[in-house]
């Protein structure tokens, strides 16, 4: 009887010791948007500008031990942009840039999440801006600190693929084509 009891406790403990990943087999179910950040940077005649989006909503389901089941959906309000300078910000809601009246949000929806290591994941999905959809791959790093967890990643897209900066702005010798996006997503609902 006592031997059976000990074994019942000892086996899971042994399993945890051997597979520490199982110890934090917690599923995150949301995003703390107040602490998260979506920033971007671009170059204008050799000058780097840093912008960000203040408003977005995110749905997330992510269990680090089962990345294949993860799903991420992000909607970014284009009108909440800070384009890096006051004059750029006042311009970019315009038709040639984001056409925020007709395309108020940019969407990202994951298609697959794969793990490279316990900290490194590849987040693949479709990014839609201004009606143009293209596949993007975002390498992300999971950082856990006590009860907190966050995903950090950067990826680059070409603005002209999405019709961002049309007409006279299509000239990439002024505003360069690559836009680097930096995401910092604070996960919530772990447990």
């Amino acid at each position, binding site marked *: 009887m006592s031997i059976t009891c000990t074994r019942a406790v000892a086996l899971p403990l042994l399993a945890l010791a051997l597979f520490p990943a199982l110890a934090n087999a917690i599923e995150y179910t949301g995003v703390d948007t107040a602490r998260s950040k979506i920033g971007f940077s671009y170059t*204008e*005649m*050799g*000058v*780097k*500008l840093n912008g960000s989006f203040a408003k977005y909503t995110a749905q997330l389901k992510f269990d680090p031990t089962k990345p294949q089941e993860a799903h991420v959906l992000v909607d970014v309000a284009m009108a909440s942009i800070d384009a*890096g*300078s*006051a*004059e*750029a910000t*006042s*311009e970019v809601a315009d038709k040639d840039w984001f056409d925020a009246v007709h395309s108020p949000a940019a969407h990202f929806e994951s298609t697959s999440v794969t793990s490279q290591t316990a900290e490194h994941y590849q987040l693949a999905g479709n990014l839609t801006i201004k009606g143009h959809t293209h596949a993007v791959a975002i390498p992300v790093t999971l950082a856990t600190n006590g009860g907190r967890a966050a995903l950090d990643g950067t990826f680059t897209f070409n603005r002209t693929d999405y019709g961002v900066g049309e007409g*006279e*702005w299509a*000239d990439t010798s*002024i*505003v360069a084509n690559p836009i680097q996006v930096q995401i910092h997503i604070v996960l919530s609902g772990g447990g």
Partner: protein
Amino acid sequence: MGARYTRTAIGLHWIIFVALAGMMTLGFYVHGLHFSPTRIRLVNYHKWAGVTLFLLVLLRLLWRLTHEPPPLHGTTPKLTRWAASAVHWLLYFLMFAIPLSGWLMSSAKGYQTVWFGIVPLPDLVQRNAGLGSQLLQLHATLNIILIVLVAGHAGAAFKHHFIDHDDVLTRILH
């Protein structure tokens, strides 16, 4: 008579005069343009030229501090002497302060100054839209003061030439 400006001093005087006139024209013109690729291009040219001019002004200041200019004529009244000297040093101050205010304005507006798109200058102030418009005001006001002082400076030189018939104007020509 006798005492002369160095060739370097004469060269710097006229190069900087022509460059400043062009920069001011470009600056006021660009200020009136709508936000567009052309405006961004011209603003960047203005900043690149501004950094270059700032370096030339520093060189000129250094030259001035190490090379005594020819003195005014002994007959010049004390007040006139003082006014001439005050205007000269104010002109140096403005030639230094105007590009500096432009550099700071650029940083405050969120744009680091990158000389010729290659050499980044440090941002001495953080991005701050309010400070940016104040520095724009300052940059424009300093330029208007410069125009007034240059007009007075040139007027005084013409007075020496046409009324006093002395060499104060011609000695900066050759």
